[in-house]
């Protein structure tokens, strides 16, 4: 009797243990599987981030290394530098000139590629081609277009009697030129992301809408755009992060690479480079890097909230229509 009870108790314990293991397996395994990313991120993302914060509160020379602890002095100094604010302005301006048209254009191109075109793959590969070109090469090609005196665009403008645009002198033209390079490179990439998302939309929706008498434009606005919501949010956030960190194009825009004599097109990343490697002041460069990080976080959150609200409202409209 007692033996039987013993056996029962043992097997019960075993079953309980197996249950527990199973539960742990279910509960913790997913975390284990994704942990390589986070371990890698901690090493190459989080550590540099925190180390930069550590550097930013010290006097720190590129060669001389760590100096005295100075607290928030570096932050106070860079915030009082006019070039910091100029480069913040430029960063936003170039970001807006590049990201906004880029997202709109990419969505339009993707919508066309989503139709039944002849030689589909050719067109789809075609839009990605500029992405393969290295940014420095893009800058070299475009510098031929945007030369102040002997550039192609100014020669054409001169041909029809318009004054030459001073691409490397005036603020807005220089931003437009840089944004053009960025867009040239990234529009195709964004297009393909949109295209992939559009192809995941069930065709039934379109058929139903067309039977109901909706035209192409109407189906685009009322079906495609609302259903792309998560992808739009993703693209806008990634292009914000990328757009606020533009470096190669403005750096290659002229021979000095500092963003112009009056910092007409100096972005925050260029400013970091100037402080860190030009003046060799790593403390201040790190302070700017952290400020840029904070700016990006704030903008990303803003973006998220705004795009959610906009996309959300259209979705609600569809739902209410559906209920009716």
């Amino acid at each position, binding site marked *: 009797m007692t033996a039987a009870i013993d056996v029962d108790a043992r097997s019960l314990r075993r079953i309980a243990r197996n249950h527990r293991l199973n539960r742990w397996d279910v509960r913790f395994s997913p975390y284990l599987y994704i942990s390589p990313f986070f371990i890698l991120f901690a090493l190459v993302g989080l550590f540099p981030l925190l180390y930069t914060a550590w550097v930013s509160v010290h006097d720190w020379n590129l060669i001389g*290394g760590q100096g005295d602890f100075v607290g928030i002095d570096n932050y106070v*100094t860079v915030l009082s530098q*006019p070039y910091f604010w100029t480069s913040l302005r430029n960063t936003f301006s170039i970001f807006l000139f590049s990201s906004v048209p880029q997202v709109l254009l990419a969505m339009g191109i993707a919508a066309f590629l989503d139709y039944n075109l002849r030689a589909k793959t050719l067109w789809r590969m075609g839009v990605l081609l500029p992405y393969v070109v290295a940014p420095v090469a893009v800058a070299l090609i475009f510098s031929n277009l945007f*030369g102040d*005196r002997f550039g192609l665009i100014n020669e054409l403008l001169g041909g029809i009697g318009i004054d030459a645009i001073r691409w490397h*002198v005036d603020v807005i033209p220089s931003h437009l030129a840089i944004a053009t390079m960025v867009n040239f490179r990234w529009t195709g990439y964004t297009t393909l992301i949109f295209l992939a998302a559009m192809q995941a939309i069930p065709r039934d929706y379109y058929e139903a809408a067309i039977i109901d008498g909706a035209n192409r434009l109407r189906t685009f606005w009322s079906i495609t755009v609302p259903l792309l919501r998560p992808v739009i949010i993703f693209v806008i956030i990634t292009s914000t992060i990328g757009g606020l960190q533009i470096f190669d194009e403005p750096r290659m825009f002229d021979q000095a690479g500092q963003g112009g*004599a*009056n910092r007409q097109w100096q972005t925050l990343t260029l400013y970091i480079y100037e402080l860190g490697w*030009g*003046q060799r002041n790593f403390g201040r460069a790190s302070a700017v890097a952290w400020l840029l990080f904070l700016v990006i976080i704030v903008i990303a959150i803003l973006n998220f909230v705004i795009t959610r609200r906009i996309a959300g409202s259209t979705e609600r409209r569809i739902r209410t229509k559906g209920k009716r």
Partner: protein
Amino acid sequence: MKRFPRTKMAAVVAGAASIALITTGCSAGTDSGSSAGGDVTLTVATFNEFGYDDLFAKYEEANPNVTIKHKKAATSNEARDNLTTRLAAGSGLSDVEAIEVDWLPELLQYSNQFIDLASADVDGRWLDWKEKAATDADGRLIGYGTDIGPEAVCYRSDLFEAAGLPTDRAEVADMLGTSWDSYYAAGEKFASAGTNVPWFDSAGATWQGVVNQLENAYEENDGTVIATENPEVREAYDDVLDASSTLSAHLSQWSDDWTASFQNDGFATMLCPGWMLGVISGNADGVAGWDIADTFPGGGGNWGGSYLTVPTQSKHQEEAQKLAAWLTAPEQQLSAFASKGTFPSQIDALASDELLGATNEFFNNAPTGEILANRAAAVSVTPFKGAKYFAINDAMQQAITRVEDGLMSADESWAQFETDVKSLG
């Protein structure tokens, strides 16, 4: 064809292997002992073209115990980044590191990272000012001079002719005179002939010529920054901008427009250090009429040039110093000049027939060797370049560009220059 019997073959292989073992054993032993005479591998880092490729082979032949590994960076900037990064890391530098005079001052603050190369063998080998520039405050010589950039004036004789000015290089030298005023006056004469071609390429490039003639332009010898209070600097700034308003092509040097203007009659003269001759003949390919005058406004001037240093990180400092001394000896520098046109900084090389006889076909067969040697001899001022020289001069160049581009008046731009210099602090 006769074939080795198997046994003999094996013996040969075994023998060769044992010899190899012995030699590697030897080299390992001497490496750690670092005594002279053992086998060493020396790495040499240079950039652009130093013209050393043949010389390395020659040195290895004369010193069988030395193997040289050459690391060549494409540009001086790349070499600078590489050097600073490894200096900061504390390891990874080559045994011999080439450095350019532009970033020599910022390295002089860390002169204890380089060994003192002064020795009786090389005493008086270089032009005084070349050697002085690489000597730190304690009198240690951290670099052996390689080449220099003595400046002359290059001009377009065809445009001069069109404006009714003399074209022969001796007469042109007389007309340009030896002061900045006479150089600008010649420009006004050229402009008044109505050719509609600017006199010089860029106010920034002209500034480079002017500022290299000021002894303490931006900093006192103790490193105190005086750039914004120095009346000499302000005066020179106003002079250059004054002249530039009527005479400059308002191009910024090295920009795409500047390069393109060589093919478009962009300007009639430019200040040209020796190494610039190659740049001009490259950019102005197919344009006839370039010539070079044996004069320079305001006395002599030097722009650019390099040094060889031995970092204290090197494990073979003695051997490295020997190699650097050999490479920078007059005979070797002349051979580098012959192969790549790097103009020697060694007194003996400057007097050699080989150098003085050199001519340049593109510049109307001008005796460029002789002219540049004269220009090197005319350099009398060693501008003091401290730790902040590079950054301050950069800010100054931007101040000048702002006025050239019409973004600001000279006074506004100067005010911003003052802020910029202050923020370097």
